[in-house]
């Protein structure tokens, strides 16, 4: 890919700062790590996010130097992924703290995409002591492999066994949200076709001019739509 920041964001050189901002926000939503949690593509998404951040930062600084003193770009710092990842990691650490250390090991295996080994380790756990965490990890394993339907079943079991765990609830909700035909993880919507064409495309001006047009047509045919003009 090219390194031109405008091409990376997909905006023209004469775009205003607010246009750039809204495109940037859309891209951040698109490549948000929540969308790619447990997916082997999470590293590609992180790379993309970094690319977008760098492009945005360089455009902001470029615009700042060209229109010195203007307020554009201020008050909206670029999306800082390292900070996010830190808190993300912490929440993961917390939820595994009280379960056996073996689960933490299996979790790390799944995250490093060593799926065969993770499956072996999970199979070693005797059936009578398989708890919510076991089912959750089995679900994560299935998901990473792409077995999303079987993963849903495991996530559901984990959630039903321990509905108070925020992590199980979040993942289960994300699955249900996507099963209903939505993209992304709820809150972080993925892209949409032509940015949801049709919605918000009709301004007050459009309506007036359409009405005038319709009136002219009517008058051509001998009728009248708006009697005063």
């Amino acid at each position, binding site marked *: 890919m090219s390194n031109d920041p405008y091409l990376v964001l997909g905006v023209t050189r004469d775009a205003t700062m607010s246009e750039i901002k809204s495109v940037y926000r859309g891209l951040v939503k698109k490549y948000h790590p929540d969308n790619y949690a447990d997916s082997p593509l999470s590293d*590609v998404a992180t790379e993309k996010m970094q690319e977008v951040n760098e492009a945005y930062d360089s455009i902001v600084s470029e615009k700042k130097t060209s229109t010195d003193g203007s307020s554009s770009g201020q008050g909206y710092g670029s999306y800082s992924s390292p900070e996010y990842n830190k808190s993300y990691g912490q929440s993961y650490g917390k939820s595994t703290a009280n379960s056996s250390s073996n689960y933490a090991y299996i979790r790390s295996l799944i995250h490093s995409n060593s799926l065969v080994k993770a499956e072996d380790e999970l199979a070693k756990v005797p059936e009578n002591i398989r708890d919510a965490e076991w089912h959750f990890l089995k679900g994560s394993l299935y998901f990473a492999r*792409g077995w999303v339907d079987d993963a*849903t079943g495991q996530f559901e079991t984990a959630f039903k066994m321990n509905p108070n765990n925020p992590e199980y609830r979040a993942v289960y909700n994300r699955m249900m949200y996507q099963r209903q*035909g939505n*993209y992304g993880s709820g809150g972080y919507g993925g*892209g*949409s076709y032509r940015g949801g064409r049709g919605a918000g495309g009709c301004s007050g001006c459009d309506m007036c001019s359409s009405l005038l047009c319709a009136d002219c047509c009517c008058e051509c045919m001998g009728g009248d739509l708006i009697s005063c003009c």
Partner: protein
Amino acid sequence: MFGYIQPYKPDLRIREFDIYKSIYCGLCKDMGRIYGRISRFFLSYDFTFLTLLSISMTEESRGFEKSMCSFNFMKKKTCLKSCDDLSYSAAVAIVMIDYKIKDDILDHKNYKSYIYKFLNIFIKKSSKKVKENHKFLDDIMGKSMDMQLYCESQKSNSLDFSAESTATAMSLIMEKLSNNISQSKVLNRFGYFLGKWVYLIDAIDDIYSDLEDKNYNPFLIKFDICDIKKDRDNLFKLFSYAENSLNLIISQIILSFELLNIVRHKEILDNIIYIGLKNVQKNVIKKRRLVLDVK
């Protein structure tokens, strides 16, 4: 199995539709040129999509040209110029249809198997040519077919397990579209879910014929269905479950698609991925569900 990956035409711009059509025509021409006249009849939307994706990811633009159409001698049509993307898609088309016909011969025991055996005669020569030029494609599909037979013999009720062979085959075919390692990885996952979706939507489409012929269908086993009239309620449950599962797969297709570096024709691809797939899915499920309302 074929023709599910297509755009939602009412929402395509005319110039987008023209490009889509010229890729279709270009593929038809190239298939005829490389694999003989008859192979053109095996062309479908899925392979047009494969070509479209392939040319959308290459930096240099492929040209278009006006050329005579074999099916309509009076008219000259705009076609994509012959290129590597086209010959790859043509080879994929031939090899997939070859294995599809082989699978159908095994699936149908009555008179229908003779129809497929008859079709097999036509594809034989073309598939031999693919084996010479694109050996790995034949290996992929050969392995996929063995795996499919194994999955069917297991009579598993897991949708993921049953779709694994098609999904894996598609992931391996797709990942070849890019030389970049990280893009190839994204294409692999994209192809995986697209293959899974195609297999499962085909399973829904064939649900009544599979029930009649007592063929393997993961949905029928999952919902324990033996008879249309007796298990009517379960069939309703089956369709709504299928719709949710397919939705989940489409959302994964979209997530992988969004990481691809698309250089051109993005709007046509967006149309297919964001609304085309869902439209096909809606129509297939609706058509099958209507049968229940009549009974």
